[in-house]
C-alpha cells in the first residue's frame, strides 16, 4: 500500500478556496486516490476519488498530475462547517482491499 504524506494542519477563512496536497511517491499503476472527511465522533465520509487528471463533484475537485506522485484536494469557498480532518488514501480498488488511514490534515476554517 502506497504511503501518503499530508500537512498535519491548515487554517483558512470562510469563503476561501482550500487546497490540501497529498504526496504518494510510490503509487502503483492500479492505485486510485481517495479522499475522506471526518468530523469529531463521526465516521469518515467519502469525498472524492480519482485516478488521473481532474475529477470534480458537487463537493470538491481532485487534481492529479501526470506522474500521479501527488494529488490536491480543492474545496471551493469553505465554510465553518468544513472544519474537519481530511484523509488522503491510495490503494487499488480491488474487491477486498483495505484502506489504511494516515494522520490526515486537520483543517480549521475561521470566521
Amino acid at each position, binding site marked *: 500500500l502506497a504511503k501518503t504524506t499530508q500537512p498535519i494542519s491548515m487554517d483558512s477563512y470562510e469563503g476561501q478556496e482550500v487546497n490540501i496536497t497529498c504526496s504518494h511517491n510510490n503509487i502503483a499503476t492500479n492505485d486510485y486516490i*481517495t479522499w475522506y472527511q471526518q468530523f469529531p465522533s*463521526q*465516521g*469518515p465520509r467519502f469525498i472524492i476519488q480519482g485516478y488521473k487528471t481532474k475529477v470534480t463533484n458537487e463537493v470538491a475537485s481532485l487534481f492529479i498530475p501526470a506522474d500521479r506522485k501527488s494529488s490536491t484536494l480543492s474545496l471551493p469557498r469553505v465554510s465553518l462547517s468544513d472544519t474537519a480532518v481530511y484523509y488522503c488514501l491510495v490503494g487499488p480498488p480491488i*474487491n*477486498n482491499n*483495505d484502506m489504511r*488511514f*494516515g494522520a490526515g490534515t486537520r483543517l480549521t476554517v475561521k470566521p
Partner: protein
Amino acid sequence: EPEVTQTPSHQVTQMGQEVILRCVPISNHLYFYWYRQILGQKVEFLVSFYNNEISEKSEIFDDQFSVERPDGSNFTLKIRSTKLEDSAMYFCASLRGADYGYTFGSGTRLTVV
C-alpha cells in the same frame, strides 16, 4: 442516501467482559470492514470481510476479536475479553465495489472500565 447503521452508539463494559458490536451494511454492498479509532488518534484498520470470510486482518485483530455475518444483513464484531485499551470508537464500513469509496457508519463508542 443509503447508510451503514451501527448499534449501540455507546457501550460501557467491564474489563474482561465480552461485547458484540453490530452493523447493518448497505444492502447491495459486498465488502465489509471494521476500523477503530482511539480518542485523538488515527483511524486503524482491523479486518475486511468478503464472501463470508475474512480477507485481511491487521496485527490489532488478534484472537480476542472475531467477526460474523450471521444472516444476510448483519455484520458483527465480537471482542471476547475486553481490555482497557480496547476503549475506542469502532466503525463499520461497507463497499459496493471499485470506484465508489467506502461508506462508514457513525460508530460505536466502546468504553471499558
